[in-house]
């Protein structure tokens, strides 16, 4: 198989944009874990990094909202946000149209998706890249799961999408890494920003590490109404995390960091799957 790395991480814009407002002790331990994930990612020598982010109206709107979309270009631009506000300079990020097209073609055998030859990155991708590939030297394949504008794809479809990506990796000669970004519980960009359900987050990450499909797709815990109540509208982004679980094909995971940093609006999280355990 050619899936060489799988993990998840937070992507909240405050991580870079409001760095000076956080408790430096917690912040720096989080940054260290984030950068370590980058070291491990690059050590896996991927030819391309698939980044599954729940984007935030940078490319897709309710006039034509895909549940699942994959980018197919040689270059992308980001961030769309004010660079000073996000703390990340605007730049070109390399893609690889050929790898994307073959990846998309394989994914389509199992999942109905949209593809996009234009894609502007927002914090959902730019914040992870800032820590994971700070030299921006590995081609990115951007993936979006609609987690913003309901109706949202059922979790079962997100799981199937992850399985389709795993099969696509296996069918390709390239070494592919998959990173999911977002969540977990949060009420971003509202007056409730900073509210975090830590117990809910830890319970979800326990299910994620065990890669327990039934627990991750638990309709009582994770139907949209319950998620909205327990974990805020930001909780819908669990789709990106459990898609990586499906892609990892039963591998067991390790949480390297998961602690609330309220001024960053989330339980800041870094976790990876041990693909050798699959």
């Amino acid at each position, binding site marked *: 198989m050619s899936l060489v790395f799988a993990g998840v991480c937070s992507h909240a*814009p*405050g991580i870079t*944009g*409001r760095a*000076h*407002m*956080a*408790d*430096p002790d917690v912040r720096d331990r989080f940054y260290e874990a984030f950068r370590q994930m980058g070291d491990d990612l690059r050590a896996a020598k991927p030819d391309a990094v698939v980044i599954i982010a729940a984007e*935030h*109206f*940078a*490319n897709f*709107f*309710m*006039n034509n909202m895909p549940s699942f979309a994959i980018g197919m270009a040689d270059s992308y631009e980001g961030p*769309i*946000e*004010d660079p000073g*506000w*996000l703390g990340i300079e605007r730049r070109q990020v390399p893609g690889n149209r050929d790898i994307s097209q073959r990846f998309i073609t394989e994914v389509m055998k199992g999942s109905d998706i949209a593809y996009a030859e234009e894609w*502007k990155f927002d914090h959902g991708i730019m914040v992870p890249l800032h820590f994971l590939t700070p030299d921006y030297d590995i081609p990115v394949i951007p993936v979006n799961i609609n987690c*913003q*504008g*309901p109706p949202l794809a059922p979790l079962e479809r997100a799981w199937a999408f992850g399985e389709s990506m795993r099969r696509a990796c296996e069918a390709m000669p390239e070494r592919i890494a998959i990173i999911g970004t977002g969540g977990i519980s949060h*009420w*971003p*960009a*509202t*007056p*409730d*920003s*900073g*509210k975090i359900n830590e117990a809910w987050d830890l319970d979800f990450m326990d299910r994620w590490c065990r890669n327990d499909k039934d627990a991750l797709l638990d309709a009582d815990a994770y139907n949209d109404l319950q998620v*909205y109540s327990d974990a*805020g*509208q930001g909780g819908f982004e669990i789709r990106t995390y459990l898609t990586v679980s499906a892609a990892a094909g039963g591998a067991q995971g390790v949480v390297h960091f998961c602690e609330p940093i*309220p*001024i960053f*609006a989330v339980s800041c999280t870094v976790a990876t799957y041990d693909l050798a355990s699959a």
Partner: protein
Amino acid sequence: MTLYAVQKFLYELNRTPAMQSAYTADRHAVLEPFDLNDEEVAALVEPDIGKLFHLGVNGQILMHFAAFHQIEWQDYLQRMRDGIATYGPVREGVYAMTTGLDDVIAPVHSSSKGASS
């Protein structure tokens, strides 16, 4: 004349630097093609962040608009709270407010208070 149209305008503005330049020069001219009512136009032109949040604008869209206007983070949060206090609960959408008006949710770390964004 709907939340959809307000959000569509903000979506286009947020991702289009040329439109941002035009909007900086003449806000009403850029808003003209969008089907907005007087309340919505006034809220956008002000900009009245609290009113826009009250109308139900998705926070991920509103946040970028606030950043475009160089509104500092804590000020952005306060403007939304003031909007709820002034105009009432969020009218529609998924971005309702669930905490009390005076709750302190995400305090700035004591060593950095007074720093700007």
